[in-house]
């Protein structure tokens, strides 16, 4: 479904990604783990067209998308919940969700999907008129995921959804991820919480200073001594 081939990305003279190749197949949950500054966010931003690759190719459902503007990619079915959530602080929960469906026209379907988001996160329903900036961190994360789903993506990119959340809220978020994949949405998940990410994904890539250093089924990686030492703290 999504394929990166030898993609390199620079910030000015600094190379953030050095020829990374990876793929995500229809219906999979793939996770990308790595330490701070490894280039995970850069990878997601490049896939969504927020950054332009310097070299390499990115294809989505067989078509080259490298360098295409973000709004075209959202229309095609790629959606991202950005790092740090990025909720619209002065807009209400409902308005935030509405913004996620900005490119869609069918009001009835949008209302239906909003109900789905509220079913997935009942906490949001209780706070639908509240300004997003006043939500707790966990609620904001739920909102960011709900909002990303409002564009009806076929591929959902999540950038560190568990960052800074208490263990029980992390649990809620990962349950939601299972639920989303259950409905057939493909997910590329960026996480530092390697334990949870490997437990809820099919395959994984390990990114270190802009290079993919390991890849394989999540089960295998979770059992790998190097991963255990470096990312699982065992």
């Amino acid at each position, binding site marked *: 479904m999504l394929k990166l081939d030898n993609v390199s990305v620079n910030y000015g003279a600094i190379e953030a990604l050095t020829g990374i190749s990876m793929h995500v197949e229809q219906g999979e949950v793939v996770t990308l783990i790595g330490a701070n500054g490894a280039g995970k966010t850069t990878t997601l931003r490049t896939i*969504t067209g*927020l950054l332009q690759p310097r070299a390499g190719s990115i294809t989505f459902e067989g078509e080259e998308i490298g360098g295409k*503007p*973000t*709004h075209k990619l*959202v*229309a095609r079915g790629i*959606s*991202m919940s*950005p790092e740090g959530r*990025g*909720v*619209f*602080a*002065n*807009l209400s929960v409902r*308005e935030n969700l*509405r*913004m*996620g469906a*900005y*490119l869609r026209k069918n009001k009835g379907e949008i209302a239906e999907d909003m109900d789905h988001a509220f079913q997935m996160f*009942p*906490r949001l329903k209780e706070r639908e008129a*509240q*300004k997003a*900036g*006043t939500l*707790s*961190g*966990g609620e904001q994360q739920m909102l960011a995921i709900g*909002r*990303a789903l409002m*564009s009806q993506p076929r591929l959902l990119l999540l950038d560190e959804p568990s960052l800074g959340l*208490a263990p*029980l*809220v992390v*649990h*809620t978020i990962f349950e939601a991820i299972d639920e989303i994949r259950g409905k057939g949405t493909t997910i590329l998940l960026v996480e530092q919480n390697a334990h949870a990410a490997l437990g809820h994904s099919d395959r994984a890539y390990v990114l270190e200073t802009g290079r993919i250093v390991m890849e394989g089924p999540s089960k295998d990686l979770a059992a790998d001594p190097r991963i255990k030492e470096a990312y699982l703290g065992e």
Partner: protein
Amino acid sequence: MPTLVKRLLAALVIVLLLIAMNSYMSEAGLFGFGVPPYYARVIMLAGINIILAVSLNLITGFTGQFSIGHAGFMAVGAYSSAYLTVYYAQAWERSLGGMVGGSLAHALIFLLAILVGAIVAAVAGLIVGIPSLRLRGDYLAIVTLGFAEIIRIVILNIDKVGGATGFTVPGYTNFLWVGAFAVITIVIVYNIVHSDVGRALVSIREDELAAEAMGINTTHYKVLAFVISSALAGMAGVLFGHYTSFLSTNDFQFIRSFEIIIMIVLGGMGSLTGSVFGAIVITIMPELLRQLPGDLSRYRLVVYSALLILIMLTRPQGILGTREFGLSWLKRARRRPEGDKPVGTGGVPIAEQEPPSAIDRAKEVKNQ
């Protein structure tokens, strides 16, 4: 009543009101009860400032893009339209007057001048906006600041529009024009803000990257808002030039742009009624200062700065914040002493309360 009828009625009321106020603006007018010229001047300038403040609020308050060269676009509108009215209007008016009558011809020509001023300012906005708004960040502030200064120097060196000696312009503007275009400006900006486009603009202000990730073509919307804002500023420039009857580049210095920024900061960025309020206050303030002993209006800049600091210290979101003044406002203000922030227990705004403890959260999660 159907909304169309309601709107037409509202428009009719506004037009009648403007006509009444227009005659009120001359001392002999309205059966001898008109206002003295001095007050009329303050009211006219307040009207023009409302257009400037509301238009700046569209790009800075609602879209979150700092433009600090609004006076530059005003100058573009003022000078381009004045070029038209000074060199061509009389001849056109004569030939058109033969066909449709003198006063209608006059009105049509001035309307054309206003359109020209708005369009030239819009084009300037496009030229400034496209390169600086394609990027995320505060490039617009720097570029607009530079643009306003460059435009001023360029005009200063064009002898056809008076250069350094100034440009005498026909005094076409009366209150009817100012009032009508102030209303039109407010209606335009109100409609934009309350549309899909407006929601896109606000989301760009809130978080540009996230807005882009939602599929909003942020460059497109930012440029759109900026061009509209520039066009309206140009229109205000036309009205201003044809009111004072004399254009000097001194009227469009940085201080003018700064004044407009103060208006929206004072009234509340992202509040239309706030901009109107801010424009009126900032127009009247130097006049009030003039009344004080020692002519404090010479220290206008000092007072503005002090005012700005005072606002920042006491009410950083401006008098109205992002809210609008309306009938429901008084009720709401009473219910929520902190206004913008929903209040949690003990009167502490929810955003400022301690986050619930892990145990509380665990309970909440279990309860779901």
